[in-house]
């Protein structure tokens, strides 16, 4: 049953033979996003970004239908960490949170993507992320 503790969180990691800077920049460059943010079945991706904290992005993936993804940058700490909200059909237009960490391992970089579904009661103030959200929920239910 303990496997169900964190069903709200997806963590995916990959070690890539590139510098943290090059990898980090690919997340905020519309031309780069157009190339690598294109899952199977998507013919064309277009991206618009306003890469500053509080700035918004829009990534539109076009296949048989159009899949817009939007969100707001929360942390831009080049080349270590990038945090942004993520709203799409996949999240049923609710805000979720994506944290990308870039960890140097010699000449390679491990990229760790943590995608979290945000609890409803925390949707308006989740800058501190999931941990803080959990603390607040605990307080809420303990009251």
């Amino acid at each position, binding site marked *: *049953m*303990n496997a*169900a*503790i964190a*069903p*709200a*969180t*997806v963590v*995916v*990691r*990959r070690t*890539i*033979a*590139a510098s943290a800077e*090059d*990898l980090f920049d*690919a997340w905020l460059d519309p031309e*780069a996003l157009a*190339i*690598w*943010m*294109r*899952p*199977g079945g998507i013919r064309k991706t277009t991206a618009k970004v306003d890469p500053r904290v509080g700035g918004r992005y829009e990534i539109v993936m076009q296949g048989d239908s159009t899949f817009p993804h939007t969100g707001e940058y929360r942390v831009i700490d080049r080349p270590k960490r990038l945090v942004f909200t993520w709203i799409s059909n*996949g*999240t*049923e*237009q*609710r805000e979720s949170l994506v944290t990308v960490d870039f960890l140097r391992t010699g000449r390679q970089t491990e*990229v760790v*993507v943590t*995608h979290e*579904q945000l*609890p*409803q*009661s925390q949707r308006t103030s989740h800058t501190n992320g999931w941990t803080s959200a*959990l603390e607040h*929920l*605990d307080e809420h*239910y303990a009251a």
Partner: protein
Amino acid sequence: MGEYKSARLDEVFNALCDPTRRAILARLTDASARVTDIAADFPISLNSISKHIRMLERAGLLRRSVSGRDHVLSLDAEPLAEASAWIERYRRFWEGRLAALDTYVTSKKRKRK
């Protein structure tokens, strides 16, 4: 439908982010149990346990059957399946994107050299 589903998903996630509620679910993994038996397992009041149980019921994670004076609880794992479908979809999505990021950045680097 989407609205209903995500509201329920919220309740599932909220229900799961408390250690007592997770322990209640864990207690019910193997067999159903009476509310009074569950309450006896935890060092908190019956009233608090009842509150936790009601939250789990609202999230659809518990089923209650009443026989005589006994309220028997059993686990319903189906809402967890919805939560894990969300996880699975994004796991596949991000794995694919990181593979594409790898290809993009490493091939760009080769071209530059």
